[in-house]
């Protein structure tokens, strides 16, 4: 087994394992904010799967596209998390800004 095959297997197992653990985490956690953490880790897992295909195919047609997908998922994952957290907070508290009763230390 060459180093290249070893690398693609390691990336495939890591990516698949991360996605499965993320799915279990979303099921097990209690609040929406706890669940949101696992969306960020899932974007890394999906990107690892795509990079595994890139390692196998090198920079061919499919390799470039999977690299594009990996980059896209890594960029858009945190955006999704932020948009969903914002929606959850607005639904919960009626607004995005800091409320009167909230004690938030902005210096930290």
């Amino acid at each position, binding site marked *: 087994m060459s180093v290249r095959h070893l690398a693609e297997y390691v990336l495939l197992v890591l990516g*698949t394992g991360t996605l499965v653990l993320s799915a279990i985490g979303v099921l097990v956690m209690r609040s929406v904010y706890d669940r949101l953490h696992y969306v960020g880790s899932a974007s890394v897992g999906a990107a690892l799967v795509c990079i595994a295909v890139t390692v196998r195919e090198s920079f061919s047609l*499919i390799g470039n596209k999977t690299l594009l997908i990996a980059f896209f998922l890594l960029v858009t994952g945190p955006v999704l998390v932020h948009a969903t957290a914002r929606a959850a907070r607005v*639904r919960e508290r009626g607004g995005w800004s800091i409320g009167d009763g909230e004690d938030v230390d902005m210096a930290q």
Partner: protein
Amino acid sequence: MNEWLLAAVVLLAALVPCGIVCALRSAVDGLVALELAGMIDTAILVLLSEGLHRQPFVDLAVVAAVLSFAGALVFARVLERWV
């Protein structure tokens, strides 16, 4: 069955927890599960394309990644304002 198809089957099983959260929890929790399912779907399509040696099918994964992102953003905005 090669290792790519095996990983795709494992990821198909990972969609079950997302479906459970969508069905049983609140709308925002369901949105989180939907976002996760979109990422898993994208990975599954990439793996199927590689495992079945149908390289043009990876275009479906590109489209799924973009559309699941856009759809999740629209859902988040709708949940924030109107629902």
